[in-house]
């Protein structure tokens, strides 16, 4: 049995690479199978647009299974749509009603420059990682597994934090365009593990400074990010980040 289909109206943000300003355009999205993902729906709409000689809607995507962090848009005012813990590629059209109008906007933040339509440049997040979000491994012979004991609880917490895919939904959803959930996740992930401890202080200081320099806003504990994060990262990671920064600064020479 094939899935039911629905008809929708899209209001999509359109902005060319060289346009100073963008605008909303309205397009019909007809006969959309409710089994489709949001991105597949956009594919169908783009095919129709191409046939009509209209430039297809540009959007980012890669894995289409919620692990790469490339996709993302604000759907009716909600980052990645209103379903919990899903990316845009995991958002199914069955969550929309027949006849609904859907407003689609790109991530909005000063630190994320708009490239085209729904595509934004998220390399600011990469720059934060480059500032210190790694561990330095001076490679030698491979170590024995389990040569460094990691307590189970710590490993679990680190794993939860490591689930961050760098999608930027936290920044998009934050009323202040803050990247605190992202760097909270990255700092926690490494600070919780013995391999990450030696550089923990230098790391957190460098990453926070980079974040500030790139024009992200300041966290005011609105907690919108943790609701919108497709990986369910908790603002407890932000509290841990704050602790790590305080420790690092107080101990610094």
């Amino acid at each position, binding site marked *: 049995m094939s899935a039911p289909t629905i008809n929708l109206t899209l209001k999509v943000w359109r902005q060319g690479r060289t346009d100073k300003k963008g605008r909303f355009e309205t397009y019909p999205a007809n006969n959309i199978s409710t089994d489709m993902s949001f991105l597949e729906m956009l594919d169908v709409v783009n095919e129709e647009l191409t046939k009509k000689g209209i430039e297809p809607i540009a959007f980012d995507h890669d894995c289409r299974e919620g692990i790469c962090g490339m996709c993302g848009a604000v759907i009716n005012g909600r980052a990645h749509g209103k379903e919990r813990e899903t990316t845009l590629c995991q958002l199914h059209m069955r969550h929309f009603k027949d006849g609904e109008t859907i*407003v689609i906007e790109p991530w909005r933040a000063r630190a994320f420059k708009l490239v085209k339509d729904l595509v934004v440049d998220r390399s600011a997040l990469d720059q934060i990682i480059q500032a210190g979000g790694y561990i330095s491994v001076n490679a030698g012979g491979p170590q024995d597994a389990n040569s460094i004991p990691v307590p189970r609880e710590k490993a679990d917490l680190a794993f939860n934090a490591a689930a961050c895919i760098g999608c930027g939904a936290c920044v998009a959803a934050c009323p202040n365009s803050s990247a605190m959930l992202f760097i909270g996740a990255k700092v926690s992930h490494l600070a919780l593990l013995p391999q990450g401890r030696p550089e923990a202080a230098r790391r957190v200081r460098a990453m926070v400074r980079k974040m500030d320099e790139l024009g992200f806003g300041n966290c005011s504990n609105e907690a919108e990010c943790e609701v919108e994060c497709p990986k369910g990262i908790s603002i*407890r990671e932000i509290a841990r980040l704050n602790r790590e920064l305080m420790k690092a600064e107080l101990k610094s020479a």
Partner: protein
Amino acid sequence: MNTLANIFTTSIGKKLMMAVTGLGFCIFLLIHLLGNLTLYVGRQTFESYVEHLHALGPLITVAELGLLFFLIIHVSTGAVLFVQNLRARPVRYAVNKWAGGRTIGSATAPYTGFLILVFIIFHLLNFHFVEHPGGLVFNTVSATFSSALYVCLYMAAMVVVAIHVRHGFWSLFQTLGANHPKYMPIIQGAGIVFALLVGFGFGLIPLYIGWGI
């Protein structure tokens, strides 16, 4: 010194300043409330509290200067954060929805903060920088709240303070890094209880005094 400068120039450092000064204000609110509760008992009890308070002399001056210092930090840092946060999103969304993290308190903190600042100035002009008739603070209190306008203004101001503190209380713990799945619900609850205590505790005084309820 360097360490302090290093912390406080970062975004997290500015938040820490908000949290520490905010905690100071919460403690102040609690002490101020406990003192003012004597008004519910009666004129004598209140006047004897005032006497004991003033007997502290220089300690009071130190506390006042400390609060003023904290106020300057809290207000100026809050203003910087507010402007930076506006600038961090030059193009706004056409559709804005709350995902479920925000509360009225968190969404309005800069505005309720500003209203509190206006109220603090108004309140000090009312009660602090005045001659008390017959040397009794109680006379000022009862004269002020014989006006329905003042009763309404003070009650409205306490609603605003309660909204600010409802977010501020748990938020300061989060900022200071105290968020644990076991204790955060307790802190959240305590914040709501504290906001209600402040709102009703202070807020009913004007009614009680003004209309002798």
